[in-house]
């Protein structure tokens, strides 16, 4: 489903829920479940943890959706809730500390293309070998549900930092993919 259409449908479902249509929440879950699970799965090491976090996220969203004033901001609200649930559960220091290498400002924007990142399966496996912050930023970028500014708010960093984090993540993933190619063997999943 194109992203514009998904965002409109999402907003529509949130408005329906706010008007008292309880069945709309099931539609919201259906619409966002896959991508949210994909995002959470990139943050945690086991699938069971990702499902638990997803369930926890829905519970929090269900309880606090009434406080969301602007239905259009639902994707940011959803990812923020999921990320906070993950942080609370994992208490991973990487979420709070700046990764100096990942956040170096980058001046090579011209080369920042993803044209060579077309094999979804390889990219999927390579993502798991990236440092957490880069993996998170690149996953959000691939899911296309948040703008760079929204990503910056979610990650708690300036937009420039998101850009540089994405740039270094792409460089790193290219390196991983080229190593996989030269070794001529499938990339192993790190869990």
């Amino acid at each position, binding site marked *: 489903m194109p992203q514009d259409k998904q965002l409109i449908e999402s907003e529509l479902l949130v408005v329906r829920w706010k008007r008292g249509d309880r069945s709309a929440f099931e539609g919201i879950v259906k619409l966002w479940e896959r991508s949210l699970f*994909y995002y959470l799965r990139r943050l945690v090491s086991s699938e069971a943890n990702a*499902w638990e976090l997803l369930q926890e996220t829905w519970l929090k969203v269900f309880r606090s959706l009434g406080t969301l004033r602007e239905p259009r901001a639902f994707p940011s609200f959803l990812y923020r809730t999921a990320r906070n649930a993950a942080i609370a559960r994992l208490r991973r220091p990487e979420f709070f500390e700046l990764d100096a290498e990942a956040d170096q400002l980058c001046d090579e924007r011209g080369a920042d293309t993803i044209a060579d990142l077309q094999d979804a399966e390889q990219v*999927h496996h390579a993502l798991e070998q990236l440092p957490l912050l880069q993996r998170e930023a690149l996953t959000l970028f691939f899911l296309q549900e948040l703008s760079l500014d929204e990503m910056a708010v979610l990650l708690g960093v300036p937009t420039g930092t998101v850009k540089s984090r994405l740039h270094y993540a792409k460089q790193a993933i290219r390196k991983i993919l080229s190593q996989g190619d030269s070794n001529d063997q499938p990339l192993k999943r790190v869990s």
Partner: protein
Amino acid sequence: MTNPSSEFREKLLGVQEISPALHDAYRQELDAMLRPPLTKRAALIGAVLLILLLGCIVLIARADLIYHVRGLMLAGNIALAAGLLCASFYIVRDLRKLRHSQNSIRSIAGVLTAAAATFTVAALMLGLHSPSDPKSLFSAFYVFVFYFACAVWGLENRIASAELSAREQALRIEYRLADLAERLGRQ
């Protein structure tokens, strides 16, 4: 910075491995969560409100019987008691079904506003019959304050509901246009 295509996104999501057992367990938990029981806090608020409403009905009935209220005042009291009884019904219904419904809150606001309006009209008309009686003035004043409070509450609910309704219609049109654009793009 170039953006990945929607197709790539779908492929990436499709690659994600999912354990059917874990997914089923998650679905079961989620289904239970989407049909939540009434929270203790909401149930307590409902019960207190119900007692208050029923108490008011008893007091109105008592006043009507003891002071032999007749005519317009009786009509006003009956309208108010009917409104309160109707609101009580909505609360009892939600408590019995163990759920908390936004629609019930809107209905209660509407019913109370209508009852208060009827009661206000009755009190004002009563005042017209005996303008020199201070009781009429006090009665009209208190009733009008009650009506005003109900009207503000009801109006807020109506405005919020109308805004959401208009937005829902606009989004439905927007969604259809996006759907049409997608289909035209495929052809």
